[in-house]
């Protein structure tokens, strides 16, 4: 370890201890286990700052936070997978003896021979650990991918194909003429004036038409086809721009959440 790194670690450790003491002191009148609570808040703040330090450069503090995060999450999900999927869902349906061993309530009416199929597939999947039987694991993989893709195919066909087609069935010239006043009324995008409705329908039509042409791969994009394709990419980019702005607003709120934690729960500067 470099000397500067060592000094930095010592400073951070000292600051951590100081923060812990101060935080525990501030919580002493509020809760009985103020030492533990003080540690938890200080440690959360330390991890938050460690992750944010990545904005400067990769450093040992970030590495520590990263490895802790990855290790804890991997172990947590493994335990969750074992206890919720295998112990709680599978075992009570297969064996009374094992249910008793894991102290699980038997589930009347849920015993089902077919639950042995995922067990067999799971064991086959684990065969990849065997040097000679690795090929067996390809069968459950094929089963998982094939069945899910097949099921999704019909679902997508319904929601992304048929329903999308029917959603483009809009009158481009508007509905029945109801006078000049109604035609120009409510000139804002959320309203139902005839002119706005007609404009919205044209946007749908041109957007879908040109967007589909952009995604047509069997023909070179030249001439009129190329022009329509260009309009298509413009439509896509406008959509992405709107989506980008909308999502960034959501991310800002996440940042505000972390800053609120640091300044309110840890430093108690804001109320």
């Amino acid at each position, binding site marked *: 370890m470099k000397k500067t790194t060592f000094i930095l670690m010592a400073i951070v450790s000292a600051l951590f201890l100081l923060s812990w003491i101060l935080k525990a002191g501030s919580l002493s009148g509020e809760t009985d286990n103020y030492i533990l609570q003080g540690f938890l808040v200080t440690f959360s703040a330390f991890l938050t700052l460690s992750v944010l330090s990545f904005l400067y450069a990769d450093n040992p503090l970030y590495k520590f936070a990263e490895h802790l995060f990855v290790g804890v999450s991997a172990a947590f999900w493994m335990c969750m997978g074992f206890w919720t999927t295998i112990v709680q869902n599978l075992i009570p349906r297969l064996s009374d003896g094992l249910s008793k061993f894991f102290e699980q309530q038997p589930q009347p009416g849920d015993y089902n021979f077919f639950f042995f199929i995922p067990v067999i597939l799971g064991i086959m999947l684990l065969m990849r650990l065997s040097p000679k039987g690795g090929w067996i694991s390809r069968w459950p*993989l094929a089963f998982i991918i094939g069945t899910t893709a097949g099921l999704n195919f019909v679902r997508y066909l319904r929601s992304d194909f048929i329903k999308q087609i029917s959603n483009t069935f809009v009158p481009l010239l508007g509905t029945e003429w109801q006078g000049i006043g109604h035609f120009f009324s409510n000139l804002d995008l959320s309203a139902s004036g005839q002119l706005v409705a007609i404009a919205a329908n044209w946007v749908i039509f041109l957007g879908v038409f040109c967007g589909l042409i952009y995604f047509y791969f069997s023909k070179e994009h030249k001439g009129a086809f190329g022009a329509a394709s260009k309009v298509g990419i413009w439509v896509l980019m406008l959509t992405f721009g709107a989506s980008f702005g909308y999502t960034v607003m959501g991310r800002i709120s996440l940042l505000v959440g972390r800053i609120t934690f640091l300044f309110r729960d840890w430093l108690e500067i804001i109320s």
Partner: protein
Amino acid sequence: MVYKLTLTLLTFLLIAPVVSAQETVAASVEATVGDPPMIDSSLIPAPPSDIKAVDTDNDHGHSITVTWELSADDGSGMNNVLSYEVFRWVPFLMDELDTLRAELARVAAEIDSVGRLTSELKDERTVVRAAISDMADQMPEAHRMYPEGGEWRLLDKVVSGVATYENTGGKNREGSDYIPDFSDLYFRVEAVTIDSTIRAASGVAGPVQSFGQWFNTGRTAVFIAFMFFGIMTVFFVMKARRGSELYVRPLAGIEAVDEAIGRATEMGRPILYVLGLGTAADVATIASFTVLGRVAKQVAEYQTQLIVPTYDPIVMSVAQEVVKSSFSDAGRPEDYNEDIVYFVTQLQFAYVAAVNGTMLRELPATNIYMGKFFAESLLLAETGALAGSIQIAGTDEIAQIPFFIVACDFTLIGEELYAASAYLGREPILLGSLKAQDYAKAAVIVLATIGLIAAQFEWNWFIELFHVVD
């Protein structure tokens, strides 16, 4: 004589309708409320008419739809119909079945209280279940005995103005809402006034049997689309297999993959391939496997380093197989090692933290993000840009494409990712399906154009063709 005959005839003509009406009312009242002492017959509404009971369409069975014509006094006439009560004739055997169900529930409660399934309780449960099963088997026979051995039971009430009711039950014989399929069921409806003793009953509808349908007619459009797409795919796959040249326009993002691999080789730095957060069954991940195969093959040929951190264990297994076979195809199976593809964690931001760390420590020359991405897309792409890597991304997650567009050098938008796998792989199956997709898009354009005209001229029959039930 003639005078007497005329008088008798006139008297008969005047009295007969009154007597007939009184008889009808009396019969109706007797059938429904059983001789109420004082009912003002003038308040009895006209009964619902034309009652029909049919098997409910497009379902798994165990359901009957009952329809009727509203009473003449519902919304007009005396306008005194408050609601309709729907009755079904139920054999007494159903009560015995209910007793057995209660017995089964008692055994289940006892198992819960004991905390384990003792052999006595298990035997008891098996016996009750067998009895329920036997009794349920006798249901069609019991229903055939109508009107003996059963009685009319109230199912439900519907408000006035409504002329339809769906009697939907379950298929579980042990459930209280069980309705047996292929049994003769009988229904009737009564129009009820504010005084529930004053009511008028319809005739009986039945026998009718419930049964499930193999084909949901509400999804015919999906079936046609499925057939169209399937036939087109098979046709183009066969065409590709025969050696026909199927044109696919060049995609900038894919052309860049080869250059990026060359760049990594020249710089002596690794290539980072991220498969995203999708499962192995997601279409984007499947497409990404094909691109990974191609990248891994070139990596093996150029002897460059490849890093593939994965989020999902199944994806890891598939990716390992893909990379392994690519190394074999490149004639360098000995260069493959299991550490090329490794599992990180299944927590989204922990995975991001790990991949970001890898980017800054390993400094890959090229980062390839192909698959399904969520909120981590910008975090990954920005860190990659910070590390100075060439970045190529592709996803079908519409909300994430903008982030890749702003932070990556090349981005495959949506379906371009699927096309990329076909373009790179040049396999007949992939090329054939890509061609079929293109024809499907052409069909969408044509149908949408006809639909626009249909919407303008209100050809509702055409619009209805695309109506799909959920």
